[in-house]
């Protein structure tokens, strides 16, 4: 089973490398990180800027990339499904095959400038945190894109529309909405509620982890500030990473269920 999975994943890797745009995506992060470090004063500030870009950019690219893969490869996936292989193995092979190159493009693209500006040595933990979060977010959002592609298999317009709305909501509107709620119901004790709500958004969770690591709560939105006060750094980071793992597991699990039961 594992060798088959790897066989399918390898085929996607070859295909993506030849498509070259994953390399381009990595280069964008390379140029971005390098210029942030060169012109942005270097050190933690640059890492913080990088993570802000990453928190917006990775979810969008990941989801579009996942859903686009499903839409572009319909006939090929159907051909593969007529071969003597288990649907489960095929799903994992495709998912691993397409999510890991995107993840690596981000990690390598950002890692190289961090290395040659020697930030990796002076700020090892924050660097690792930002790169790790980008990697996890990539997996989560490719998985969501996959899921939306399967759910809206015959209706691409709906699929893309839904993807964009989900991105807008999670990446941009969410923190604002929480803040609005807090203002409206300011006289009630809302801390637990705000923590619960921020757990429901993977981008918020990642934002909170960055904030806890850099200890810059005021700069990173309201939910971050509450999280920091409630948990303090290390417990907060552990809780948030636990939630992120759940965020990775659930969409992937639902995607697999849909893929196994679907009529193609």
């Amino acid at each position, binding site marked *: 089973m594992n060798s*088959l999975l790897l*066989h*399918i994943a390898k*085929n996607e890797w*070859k*295909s993506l490398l*030849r*498509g070259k745009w994953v390399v381009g995506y990595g280069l964008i992060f390379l140029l971005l990180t390098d210029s942030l470090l060169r012109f942005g004063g270097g050190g933690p500030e640059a890492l913080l800027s990088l993570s802000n870009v990453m928190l917006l950019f990775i979810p969008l690219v990941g989801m579009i990339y996942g859903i686009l893969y499903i839409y572009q*490869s*319909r*006939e*090929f996936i*159907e*051909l*593969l*499904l*007529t*071969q*003597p*292989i*288990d*649907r489960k193995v095929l799903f994992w092979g495709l998912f691993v095959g397409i999510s890991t190159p995107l993840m690596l493009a981000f990690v390598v693209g950002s890692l190289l400038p961090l290395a040659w500006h020697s930030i990796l040595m002076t700020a090892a933990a924050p660097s690792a945190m930002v790169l790790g979060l980008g990697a996890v977010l990539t997996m989560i959002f490719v998985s969501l894109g996959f899921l939306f592609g399967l759910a809206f298999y015959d209706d691409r317009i709906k699929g893309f529309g839904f993807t964009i709305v989900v991105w807008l909501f999670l990446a941009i509107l969410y923190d604002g909405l929480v803040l609005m709620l807090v203002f409206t119901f300011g006289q009630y004790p809302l801390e637990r509620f705000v923590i619960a709500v921020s757990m429901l958004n993977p981008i918020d969770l990642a934002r909170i982890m960055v904030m806890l690591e850099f200890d810059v709560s005021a700069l990173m939105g309201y939910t971050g500030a509450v999280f920091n006060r409630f948990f303090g750094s290390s417990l907060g980071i552990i809780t948030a990473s636990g939630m992120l793992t759940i965020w990775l597991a659930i969409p992937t699990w639902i995607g697999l269920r849909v893929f*196994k*039961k679907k*009529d*193609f």
Partner: protein
Amino acid sequence: MIEIKELKKSFGSLEVLKGINLTIPKGQATGIVGPNGAGKTTLIKTILGLVKPDSGTIRVNETKLNGNWQYRRDIGYMPQVARYPENMRVHELLEFIKGLRNQPAVYEEELIDQLNLGQELQKQLRTLSGGNRQKVGATLAMMFNPNILFFDEPTAGLDPKSSQKFKERVKVEKENGKTVIITSHIMSELEQLVDHVIFILDGNIRYYGSTKNLLAESNEERLEGAIASMMEVA
């Protein structure tokens, strides 16, 4: 050998297969015909495991289908629309499928030779003409020597010479005792390739028997006329 009992499938409120009963014995060459939307493709997709039935049972070579995949070792399928990853080369696609199936590709070279695909092997699939892509599909379907072959509108995009070569090949497969199932709208082609016909209309089988009997019953000389008159009656 394919055995289907009371097979039903709906998509939403649309009933596509309304209780199909069908036995296709080993070694028989069968054509599936019917108007567009009659349920031909759904029937084939259900046997291939692409579509899950609502009720009823399917057995392929004595294996009952229940989400299992091993039975597909015995099946080769050539789809109607052949689209592959664009920047993959033909030989890479063949290698990839060989790795997936893990069966000896006994007829690979023979098919490449017969279908004249030798010069295409190094090309990227996006640069191939529709006909050549169809030939790649035919090669993938037959190269592992499976004992059941499905062809969905196989010669639609082929030039006359390739079409001829393809049909010769299918005849050889038939003589070697393979179960061959073809859907096509080209009746003259079916006449050359199959000896049994399944006529599907509105999700039911309206006729299943040998082409000879069909022609005799309908007082027609050609399959086209016989099928057309069945469609009119319906």
